[in-house]
Each structure stands twice: as C-alpha cells, then as structure tokens.
C-alpha cells in the first residue's frame, strides 16, 4: 500500500495546489478587515444575552431574559418606551441602535464558567454578536468578561456582586452596573450601628468561595470600623444544605449578631436553620439576637418565606424605590410599569440591572457614533447619567464600576403578596459607598486597554 511514484508533474501540481491553498487564507484575511470584531451590517445588530437558564440561578436568569426582551422592544421603538423617556441621555429614539434594528441571541450559562464561555463564544463566532451581557454569578461574569476582552467585544455584566469583577479581575472591555460586596458592607454598617448599636459582637458564616470571602471581608471591615467586634468567622462548604452544625455553636460563642454571607440556596437553608434554632428570639449579652444577610434578592426572599421577616440586607435596586423615596429615583416607575404590563409582576433587581445595561450600551454606541468597542469604552468611561432608577450614577473610568445609591432593606413582617417581601429601610447615598480605586479590597489586577479584536 505504501507504493508511491513521484513524477515531476505530480510534484509541481501538488506544490501549486498546496501553495494556492496556503496563500488563499492570507488573501481572504485581507478583505474582511473592518477594524473590530463582528462589525454589524447596515440593517441589523446582534446582541448576545447569556443567562443561566438551567441550574441554581435559573429563576434569576429567566427574569434577566425578560428584561432583555423588554429592552430590545423599547430600543426598536416598540411598547411604551420604558426608561427611554426618563433617561438623562436623549440620543436613543426607538429606531434601534445607529439606525440598525436590534436582534438578539440567547444562550445558557448553566452557572458554570465553561458552559458560559462556550455559549458566549458561539454567540461571537457563529451569530456575530457585538456585545455579550448577562450572567448571575461572579465566577461566570469574570470568566465571560475575560473572554470578551480576548475576543474584542463589549461585556456588560449582569448580576455579579463580588469585588473581583471590577477589582482584581477587571477588564477594559467589561462594565458592571450592579453594586458589589464593598458597597454592601459600607451601606449596611451605618444602618446596623443605628439599629443595633455600636457594641455588637458578630459571628460570620461564609460560603467557601470567592464571593463569600469578599463579602465577609467587606462587612467585617465596615462594621469593625464602627466599633463592632468579630467573634468568629466560619467557612461553610458551598454544597452544604443543612447548616445546623454550623448554627449550633453560634449562641454559646458570645456573639449577638449572625452574619450570613450566603447567597441563593445556601442563604435560604442557613437562614431557615438559624430561625428554627430560635436565634431570632434569643438574647445574648443582654441584647436581642439579630441576623444579617448582606446581599438580598427577591427570589431568595421568596424561597426563605416568613423566615426573612425582620432581617436586614442590601439591594442594588427595588421596584418600590420611586414610590417611597421620591423622584430622585425616576425611571423606576416607568420600568416597573412596562415590565408589569408585559409580564404581570414587578421586576427583580436582576431584571433592572440587565435592562439598564442594555440601554447604557445602546446609548454609548449612539453617542460614540460607532460600534467599535474602543469607542464604546471611551463613551462609557466617566459617563454620568440619571433617570435609570438608581438616581444620579457614575460609570467610573478607573475600574468600570457604576457608583450609585445602595438600598438597605428589611424582610417584611406581614407581606401582602409574594412580590412585596421587603421594605426599604434606608437608601445609603452614593458618597458613603464610594471607594478609592486602589482600595485594598480591590487591589491587584489591571484594566489593560480596550481590545477591538480582529
């Protein structure tokens, strides 16, 4: 079988074909250069909505997707326009983005970095998405953000609360509207001091992964600065479902506040256990025992049911904000109205942040007059805006983090319905949650420069 004859003609022919084959790609490469990845055509532009549709945060993902669909509808001139009418920047007029109709593709992150990156890559490589947005965990956000930086598209983060997203893992092509662990700590600490006093002893239970660490650190340092003492901080495995053995030692530890640095199913379970152990009725050091949950979400509150009553936490946004705290938070009602009319219930904070991110991207492209990621980055950096539900907001150029007021909420004692589970205690003004870009909790990492790809 291994018999072969080399003839001069044969070698020449093969050589010519091989040469042409090698030269062809170089030739093809030359003509498709537009200066950046996935430059959209003249009639439409594709955005990639990468949200968890299966796995532990599927509910949040579904709500994010609803908000994205609503944002696309509004950008294309459908519906009542939502926040477009309240947004301080008025360049968006309902004709899509730069005259191109907005189309979108969806993908499932499964709340796994690998799956999320696979899904994002398919959006970029197959569907020609010019911007990727979404996600409901920091691990996924950081992973997809790095991918977008490499590929040369813009990433508008969805729900991600860890300091790292705009701290040590920040990237020039990535932007976060959602607040972070540090802001939670800074917003909660004064309220905790006012409500429970400044001589409290705290016991932390922390989910044993990245977000847990940054949240614990943020809450610890903010509360300790106001005179609190941290008795103990215990890490709990992420897969833990029964926290009894972690809760039991709390009462005898000398602590009088329990801080649960947990999210999702962890938080529902640990809070339920803590309440079942009677911590809410207990007395310690002559004071009423209290429980604190740094990061609240409506969907978690629903899961924890009546156990959430009276427990303090922080949120990025709440749908009752404008009604209760006035016109500073304009945009909230406009959004809640169009979301409610379309889907029949009020939006969660995840829906709010993703809707706003889509609008902010569209606005930045329009103001820049180009889809080029570097132009978009320039338009978003240092951008000050208002009327998107959170009051006056700044997209800081140093780390691409949004700075805005943080909502401190408490679980309602007698909720009227399943969408009205929390009451707004206070809105911490943006000055109190602003930090230096070189703050130790955000140290390390570099933004780098914007990458237009191609």
């Amino acid at each position, binding site marked *: 079988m291994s018999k072969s004859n080399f003839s001069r003609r044969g070698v020449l022919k093969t050589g010519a074909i091989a040469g042409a084959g090698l030269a062809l790609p170089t030739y093809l490469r030359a003509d498709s250069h537009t200066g950046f990845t996935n430059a959209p055509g003249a009639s439409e532009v594709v955005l990639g909505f990468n949200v968890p549709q299966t796995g532990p945060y599927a509910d949040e993902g579904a709500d994010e997707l609803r908000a994205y669909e609503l944002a696309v509808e509004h950008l294309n001139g459908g519906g009542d326009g939502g926040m477009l009418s309240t947004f301080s920047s008025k360049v968006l007029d309902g004709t899509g983005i730069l005259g191109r109709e907005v189309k979108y593709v*969806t993908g499932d992150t499964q709340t796994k970095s690998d799956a999320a990156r696979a899904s994002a890559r398919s959006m970029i490589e*197959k569907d020609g998405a010019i911007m990727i947005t979404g996600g409901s965990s920091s691990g996924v956000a950081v992973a997809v953000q790095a991918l977008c930086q490499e590929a040369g598209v813009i990433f508008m983060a969805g729900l991600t609360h860890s300091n790292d997203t705009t701290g040590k893992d920040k990237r020039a092509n990535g932007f976060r509207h959602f607040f972070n662990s540090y802001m939670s700590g800074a917003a909660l600490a004064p309220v905790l001091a006012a409500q429970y006093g400044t001589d409290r002893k705290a016991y932390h239970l922390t989910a044993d992964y990245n977000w847990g660490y940054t949240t614990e650190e943020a809450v610890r340092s903010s509360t300790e600065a106001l005179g609190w003492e941290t008795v103990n901080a215990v890490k709990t495995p992420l897969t833990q479902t029964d926290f009894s053995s972690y809760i039991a030692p709390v009462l005898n530890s000398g602590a009088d506040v329990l801080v649960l640095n947990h999210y999702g199913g962890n938080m529902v379970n640990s809070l339920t256990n803590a309440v079942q152990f009677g911590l809410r009725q207990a007395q310690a050091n002559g004071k009423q025992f209290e429980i604190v949950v740094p990061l609240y979400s409506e969907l978690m509150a629903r899961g924890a049911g009546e156990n959430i009553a009276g427990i303090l936490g922080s949120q990025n946004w709440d749908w009752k904000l404008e009604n209760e705290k006035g016109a500073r938070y304009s945009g909230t009602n406009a959004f809640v109205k169009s979301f409610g009319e379309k889907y029949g219930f009020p939006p969660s904070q995840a829906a709010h942040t993703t809707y706003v991110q889509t609008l902010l991207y569209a606005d930045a492209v329009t103001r820049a007059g180009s889809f080029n990621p570097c132009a978009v980055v320039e338009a978003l950096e240092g951008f000050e805006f208002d009327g998107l539900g959170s009051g006056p907001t700044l997209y800081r150029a140093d780390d691409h983090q949004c700075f805005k007021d943080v909502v401190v909420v408490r679980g309602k004692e007698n909720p009227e319905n399943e969408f009205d589970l929390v009451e707004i205690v206070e809105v911490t003004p943006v000055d109190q949650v602003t930090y230096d870009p070189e703050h130790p909790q955000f140290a390390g990492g570099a933004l780098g420069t914007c990458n237009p790809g191609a």
Partner: protein
Amino acid sequence: MLGLEKKDFRLLLVVIGLTLFAPIILNPFPAGSEMAQFNAGYPDLMQRFVIFGIFAIGFNILFGLTGYLSFGHAAFLGVGSYSAVWMFKLLSMNVLPAIILSVIIAGLFSLVIGYISLRRSGIYFSILTLAFAQMSFALAYSVLTPITGGETGLQLALDDPRILGAAQTASGNIPVPALFGLEMRASYELNIGAWSFTFNTGYYLAAVMLVLAFYLAIRIFRSPFGLMLRAIKSNQTRMSYTGLNSRPYTLAAFVISGMYAGLAGGLMASMDPLAGAERMQWTASGEVVLMTILGGAGTLIGPVLGAGMIKYFENIFSKINGQVLHDWFGFLPGGLEDFVVTIIYPFVGKGWHLTLGIVFMLVVIYLPGGLVQGGQKILAALRRTKTDDANPGASKPAE
C-alpha cells in the same frame, strides 16, 4: 500501512477525512438561512467536538477494554487544564509546553489515584474514583483558591511573569495562546456563494491531536496489551487463577486514559485560556460516561460520535428560543403556530437536557451497542437489499 490492518487503516482515513473537512461538513446550510441555526461549523464547537472526542477515546481505553467504570475522569481533565494555564502564566503563551505538561501532570495524578482505586473493582472502584474527583473539585473550588483561582477559575493576568514570552502585547493586552506565533483563535473565512466556512488554527491543532490519539488507540486496541485488557473485562478471576497479576495492566490502562484526559484538558485551556473547577465536577465525569455509552463502549469510533452528539445538543439545541421557533412556524395560521411552538418548546432551549435524555434512553433500549450499532444495522440492511438475500446474517462488527 502504519502497522494497521486494512480495515483499521480505512477507519483512520475516514477519521482524518472527517476532521479535515469538518468545517465544511458541519456547515451544510447557507449562512443567513433559517436552517443556519443547525450549523455547527464554528471554531468553538468544532474544537469542543475533537477535544471531547479525545477525552472519550481515552475513557474508552479504560472502560471499553477493561470494563472498569471510572466516575471521576473529569478530575484529570481539570488537572490538565490547570497545569496548562499555569504554563501560560509562568512560561509563555506557546501551547506546546502547556500541552506536554498537562499530559505529564495528569499522568502522575492518575497514577496516584489509580494505584489506590484499582485495589477494588466493580462498583467500589467507581465510587472510589467518584470520591477522588469530588474531592479534587472541592479542593479546587475553595481550599486551593490560591492555586486554582477558586470559583472564578484560573485566569491569565497582565502581570503574570511569562518568563519566555511577552507578559503583555504592545497594545497592553494579554497575549493569546499560540503555536510558535500561530494564534489559536486565528480563523480564515471562506465564502462560497451563500455558504461560509471557518477554518480555525486551534481547531486544526486539536484535530491533529485527535488523529494521533485515535491512531494510538487503534494500536492499543489491536496489541497484545489490548488483548490482555479485554481478558480482564471478560473474566478477571480466571486471569488471576492462571497466575497472572492483572493490576499492572489495569493501572497502565488507567494512566493512559488519564493522560488522554490530561491532553484534552490541556487542549481546552489552549483554545480558551481559563481553567474552572466545574471541569472536575461529577457531572463532567458523568458526561464522558454518557458519551462513551451513547456512541458505543468498546468500539473505536463510538466515543467520538457520542462526544459530538452530546456537544451538538448542548450547544445548538440550547440556543433555540421561543423567538426562533415563532420565526420558523410563522407561516402557520396563528392558533396552529402557537400550538406547534408550545409542543416543541419544552424540548429545545433550556429543555435540551430533556431531548438528550430521550435520545439516550432510546439508544440504550434499542441500540445497546450505541450509535455504532445503529450504523451497523443500517449498513447491514442496505447490504441485504443490495445482495438480495444472497448472504444473510453475515454482517460482522465493523468497529
């Protein structure tokens, strides 16, 4: 040729042909058409096809030949990825040292785990490997965060040393993995009429590895060593009675298949320089078992087919959302359109697991030999009609 029998050589040629022309074969529909949704010829998915193909081929050397069902193979994949990314961080962005190191580290890791786990067989072996893999996952996810990056995964950073290469590019970005300057993510678009084909460097590197891995697997299957492994599968007790110590053989098979997994992990990191702990989770280990069984355990080509099928479902079916369905069935009258969409919707988009589950069930019930058996049945049926009952029942397994 190449020390292979004619039939095996033909199979190798088929694999080479398939991998070589995959960008064309996988994009049968013109770009922009309604059916373009089903095109799978984009770099990321093609890379995944061949990488998981390698992973499944390696797994099959252990499971298909010796019958030892490892439920923790993803651990080696993860270890391979982590070592590759560390090489990118410390040494340079060249993929070659990264891939070599990932194979070596995964080999050492599997030697340790294999040495302990292979003291038991059957279900106990499976549980031991599962326990080790879950342990590795838990370690990577939290305890070893400084080494593995924990939840957010191990990533490249601008301030990594990269002693043999540039720490950052001239424009201030992290360099991308490359093979002596040939960037893994570089692609060439070829437009022929309405069709568009993407030829990707990274894909072809992975494809070469797949062909090599496949060739090595054929050699192992046909060698005396492979025969010994099959003997272990058919009756290990009898082998012990003949005075033969089977442990070295099973351990060798375990390490080889661990190295295959390490190669797959290293390639994965080379295509996309990130290593996450989820890669080691038990669901990932279960996935490779599914791939092998779906394609046909113990056959040569089966695991590759199974890997392709599962990755296709995961990436293509999961992207069909309600809007796409409405586009497809828009020609139907209003009520009927909604009805059809309602019927189909649970099986696509986030329901892709359901479709895959049904397919898996059907395969296991009706084709216990996997997709390969299905292919054989079809071939046999074709041959029968062609030769007109001249030679009934003469179909031989054609792995």
